[in-house]
């Protein structure tokens, strides 16, 4: 029956496109920029540079992916990476130990995200509100701690070398991605996150300790956000109390562009990798085209809206009677 076959084929193509739209968009942009920037885009050094500058965004977005998969959201990411970056820089200058700097940043991240997690699970405040509050709280904290000034990180330091420059920067990015992916796919932690995002009530009725899992996801995000803050500080060469304003929007865009639905349950870190690289590529390409930064911001806003639209389409694809 040819009618059946044609109908089936049409549906299969639509199905494929809808489920791989982020990858398709990535390829599309890649090709477009390659052909339209007088060869400046498609060089090894440029591509490595794009990748390098996307690492902090990627790491932060990996943590955010789990939060969004839960059905929650984190608006405090920008303030938190600034806070963790400053703590890392100050600790490094005091101890000359990159490990100590890393530990300090992670400790701060854990504490703040633990409080956010507590506010959400025990006090029942929606994550939108909690993280919005911490956007301000964290920003105020970093301003107080740094007295409003930046803390320089010496260029010759191990801090800069291992966290801010290639090749280590890329290795760390890849390692973070690999760890996040393995956790998502193979561990109970990843599975419980997905189930709670799929339907919190059903997850509870299936015996999952929802509050405990949510708390653990927040702590997980705390570690990754802290690491992103450290990488960012290493990249720009200082712990800065003013960096990262609006950063959370980039993070959420990267996650959502990659196909993780902000309604929870659908998506994953594989998509986030593509989303982060796409955003990095978009910035880079627009710069190569000579676009001023306002235009870049404008286009990023449009991309975010389209990304959400597409991710909604994906979930709507499920037939619910």
């Amino acid at each position, binding site marked *: 029956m040819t009618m059946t076959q044609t109908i089936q084929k049409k549906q299969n193509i639509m199905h494929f496109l809808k489920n791989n739209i982020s990858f398709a968009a990535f390829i599309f942009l890649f090709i477009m920029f390659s052909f339209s920037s007088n060869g400046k885009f498609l060089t090894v050094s440029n591509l490595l540079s794009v990748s390098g500058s996307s690492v902090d965004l990627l790491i932060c977005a990996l943590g955010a992916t789990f939060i969004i998969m839960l059905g929650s959201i984190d608006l405090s990411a920008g303030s938190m990476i600034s806070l963790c970056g400053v703590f890392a820089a100050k600790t490094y200058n005091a101890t000359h130990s990159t490990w100590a700097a890393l530990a300090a940043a992670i400790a701060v991240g854990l504490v703040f995200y633990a409080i956010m997690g507590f506010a959400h699970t025990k006090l029942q405040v929606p994550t939108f509100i909690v993280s919005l509050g911490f956007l301000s709280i964290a920003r105020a904290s970093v301003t107080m701690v740094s007295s409003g000034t930046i803390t320089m990180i010496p260029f010759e330091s191990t801090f800069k070398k291992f966290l801010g420059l290639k090749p280590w920067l890329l290795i760390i990015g890849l390692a973070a991605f690999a760890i996040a992916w393995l956790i998502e796919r193979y561990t109970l932690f990843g599975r419980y996150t997905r189930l709670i995002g799929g339907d919190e009530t059903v997850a509870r009725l299936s015996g999952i*300790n929802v509050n405990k899992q949510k708390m653990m996801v927040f702590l997980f995000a705390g570690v990754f956000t802290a690491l992103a803050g450290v990488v960012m500080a290493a990249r720009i060469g200082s712990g800065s109390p003013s960096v990262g304003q609006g950063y959370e929007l980039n993070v959420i865009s990267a996650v959502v562009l990659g196909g993780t639905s902000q309604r929870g349950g659908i998506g994953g870190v594989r998509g986030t990798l593509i989303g982060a690289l796409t955003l990095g590529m978009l910035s880079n390409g627009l710069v190569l085209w000579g676009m001023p930064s306002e235009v870049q911001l404008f286009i990023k806003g449009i991309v975010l809206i389209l990304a959400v639209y597409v991710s909604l389409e994906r979930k709507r694809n499920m037939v619910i009677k």
Partner: protein
Amino acid sequence: MLEVAVVFKGIKKYFSGTKALDWDSEDFIEVNSGEIHGLVGENGAGKSTLFQVLMGIYERTAGEILLFGEQYNVENVHKAEEAGISIIMQQPNFAYNMTVAENIFMGRDKEFTNKAGLIDWKKQNEATLKILKEYNYDHIKPTDILSNLGFEEKKQVEIARALSIKPKVLLVDETSAAISKESVENLYKLLREQRDKGTAVIYISHFIDEIYNLCDRVSILRDGKLIKKLVVKDTTPNMIINSMVGRDISGNNYRSDNSTIGDVVLEVKNYTMEGSFTDINLSVKTGEIVGIAGIGGCGSDAFGRALFGYEKATSGEVIFKGKNGHMSSPQKAIKNGIGYIPKDRDQEGLFLIYDAVLNTSSANMKKMSKNGIVNHKMERKVAQDAVKQFRIKTPSELTAVSNLSGGNRQKVAIAKWITNDSDLLIVNSPTRGVDVGAKYEIYKILETLKNEGKSIILISDELPELLGMCDRVYCFRKGRKSGEFCRGVNFTEEHVVSTMV
């Protein structure tokens, strides 16, 4: 009065991965005005899909629909209702935070809106009261908020709404499941009145005796195909069942009697939950199926939830396996060997966006993992076995369960808890909306569990089910235990019903 109201011809409706309806191009169903036309079939046969195509909820992939002789194509429910077709659905769809009046007239409030765009609420409430009175539903007030109404009353508002459109074609989708006997009789009366008025009524049901009670003709679907069309008075129930199922299921014996009953495993004393049930005393032994019979509002649902730790009881004693049986959370209950199959499978039992694999393993993750690492191979195998054993109709175990029909989703919901190996399984309405063949399979599964020495609490309002499956039945009425029956002693419908109502 034998005007042809609706003709369905050659209908096909494909979803990604499933052919919900796949009639041959010459197959047709004709429904006349002034007829109650039954539509039966197993789960996944395509009955609800046919309705949804007619109501404009889905666009058909192929085929023709004629409404009073004219070609019929609508893009949405609103247009379908304007064409004179209305539907009473399996699951009521309401704006629960709004009033009865607002829900009944949703989308139709133009007649109460003046030129400035302001709505005359008084007029709307009066019109609503008129409608409610017409169907003897005036114990419900137009200003009542939907979420405050009980299950029965919500159904009644749904029915009132569908009839207030003054439909020429009325679709009824398995409405009599889960409502009281009195409401069922009322519903039949309304449907017969509609038929006598000349409305074409198409009625989906799983109850064969209902088809005989109500319908003039019946069309039988199976696996998306149109199998047979029969005139009810010229057929026997077995003929219908055999066409539905494609195999011979005769002999209604749900179980064979043998003694597997052991010692008391659960004892409940003075168990109370304020607002739901009071002073319940009962016990359950190993290898026993204990039924809890009752109609809406009797407290049996809350009782099940409390035992599972999902809701908190106010006072009382629970002894399970010799120790304190109060469960503070479902997690604790599962750890102690208690499972719970909820009444509302879609809202509470299943992750609709996920596949059968994730669903069946979701209550059993500790066993499906080692040291925190998930064993994908094992859970996939478990799901595949479940699909085979329960005859779940799905393209694969990797298909999202939202794509499955109601009855097949129920099978997945049950499979989820069977694989959990619970000592005590609390089951609420396990065969609601499930067809004859699948019902039998589910009963066989429960019987196997009983024979393995497990205990089952079966909460249900279906008497044949309770009498067919249970060793003992407790009756709940308005939150209290109103009776207790043992197999062999007064174990008949009449006796049990008298304590239920």
